[in-house]
């Protein structure tokens, strides 16, 4: 036999429940609308890239993709002049950037998270400031310098540039990854007989690896996507985005749309893989 509340209370409760339900429904609605807004263009480009060039030229465009489904357009794009080499270049540059950036950033990130030293805050602030630097103002003089050094228009020099662009973010992210691993673990390992280096290797590295890998993946994609510096710093050894950009004016629709789709696919896959780390990366990496 439970206690009954007053009638007024029943009404209040019902009203509150209704309001909550409406709010939830509204949230769902907004979420779904926004999701469609995000997904629709991707759907459309997929539908036009995964069909035959003839179907692509047809007007009005079918929205239902995959009718007919064909890799012809993609193949046309990939066979186009400079695309396959561009693809290879992009991958190579991105890998080199990934390696170099992680290699340089990891110790700096570790130092930031574990040590308190004079100039720490200045270092950290300059990393934050440099992160926001326009790529535009760096590319032009670097082109100049690379020309006079004789390393212009080469894959390694572009990788150097991309490393510079991604270094600040990587330092901050790796720093926060290490900061999240309690120092007591390293101390405990040392108490039980490890040297500091062994302690780092056996205790910290395994825990930090997922975060570092995510940061590395992020660096890879940033390099893969980068357009301006790539266009400025390469002529014969273009990366994929640079190649596509330069050919854009004369390009046929098939080339363009297949190219756009092809460049987009890694992004989507990438986000799916690292969605857990999204907050850590952008949230903590900002001021």
């Amino acid at each position, binding site marked *: 036999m439970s*206690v009954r509340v007053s009638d*007024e*209370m029943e009404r209040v*409760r019902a009203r509150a429940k209704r309001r909550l339900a409406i709010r939830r429904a509204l949230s769902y609605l907004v979420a779904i609308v926004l999701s469609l807004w995000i997904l629709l263009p991707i759907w459309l480009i997929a539908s036009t890239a995964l069909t035959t060039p003839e179907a692509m030229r047809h007007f009005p465009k079918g929205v239902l993709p995959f009718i007919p489904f064909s890799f012809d357009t993609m193949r046309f794009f990939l066979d186009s002049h400079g695309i396959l080499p561009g693809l290879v270049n992009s991958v190579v540059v991105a890998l080199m950037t990934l390696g170099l950036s992680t290699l340089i950033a990891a110790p700096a990130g570790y130092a930031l998270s574990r040590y308190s030293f004079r100039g720490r805050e200045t270092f950290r602030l300059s990393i934050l400031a440099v992160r926001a630097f326009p790529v535009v103002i760096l590319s032009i003089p670097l082109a100049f310098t690379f020309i006079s050094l004789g390393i212009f228009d080469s894959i390694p020099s572009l990788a150097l540039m991309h490393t510079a662009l991604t270094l600040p973010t990587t330092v901050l992210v790796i720093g926060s990854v290490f900061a999240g691993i309690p120092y007591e673990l390293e101390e405990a390992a040392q108490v039980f007989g490890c040297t500091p280096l062994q302690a780092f290797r056996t205790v910290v590295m395994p825990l930090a690896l997922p975060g570092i890998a995510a940061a590395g993946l992020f660096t890879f994609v940033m390099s893969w996507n980068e357009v301006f510096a790539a266009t400025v710093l390469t002529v014969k050894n273009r990366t994929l985005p640079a190649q596509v950009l330069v050919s854009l004016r004369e390009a046929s629709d098939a080339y363009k749309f297949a190219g756009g789709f092809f460049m987009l696919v890694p992004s989507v896959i990438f986000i799916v893989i690292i969605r857990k780390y999204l907050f850590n990366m952008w949230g903590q990496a900002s001021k």
Partner: protein
Amino acid sequence: MSEIRIEGVTKHFGDFVAVKDVSLVVAEHEFMVLLGPSGCGKTTLLRAIAGLGMADEGRISIGGRDVTYLPPRERHISMVFQSYAIFPHMNVFDNIAFGLRMRKEDKTEIEERVRLAAELLHIEGMLDRYPSKMSGGQRQRVAVARAIAMQAQVLLMDEPLSNLDALLRLEMRAELKQLLAKIGTTTVYVTHDQVEAMSMGDRIAVMHGGTIQQVDSPTEVYDFPANAFIGGFIGNPPMNFLMGQVRRGPGGTTVRLGEFDVAPAAEMQQVLSKYDGKPVVLGIRAENLETLNEQAPDALMADVLVVEPLGAQNLLTVAFGGHKIKVATHPAFPASAGGRVWLRLPSDSIRWMDPDTKQALRPSDHREAAR
């Protein structure tokens, strides 16, 4: 006007029932403490009173007004949160003034009330300081000041002292008690610290497993716990519990502890006789045992295992007949580990409990604990 009446309140989270059919009346101006271990439901109950987690069943009334499903701001209550929850982007003045400002009170009124509250908490000199520049103890004062500035009918406090260090906690306990006595608001105070509960409450409601086990004054709860859980939870060291065998004989009912016979108090004879042939739980506090250095006919012999000199008393861990209990003695009482001691169990200090339900056994005419 500010009486809190909780009737049959139940709250579940999914399959888990946090608060089970709880009823309680907090009288006007009363300082009621909800005491219990973590997970007992005390914070859930407090939040139900506050309106931060509405009850699923039952009714809550404040000052005769049914508030069960009213949003918090319509209940005329005030609260101090465990983490203080003061607004980091506002200075002390604005923090204390927040509730009054939300109610669109008049500016001079706000100013006056804020100053008054700040004075009561001795923080009138920090009104323009920001929380990030304050210690934990100072922030706690701001939280309390913010709550009392509202001059609400009911004040709720969710473990406000638990984040302070031991010394500060001691200080604040006394200060808070004095302050709240002065203001006289009806207060519900949640804590897991039984010392806090004992020191501050007018009455203590001991909770366990989502239900209220006993509601009584601190001394009643201490001296006459309603069950073994309460006896073991309150008091430091906890109450000792021993299992004895009831024997009803020609001279009366006695309880056998190993090789020793305990004679229950006269008023318990009738109740205990019903347990003839069955076991029964015997509870006695460490400080109520009498200790002797030599044998006596009504004393039981025990081996001393550990002697802990605590300054004001010595705490002995002794063993006999398979039992291990704690005994408090005067610091000068000679005892050493490995030695022997003789214990007397004064019958009026023994609390008898049912071995199955663990409920306290009362003589038939003993007054019941308010429930």
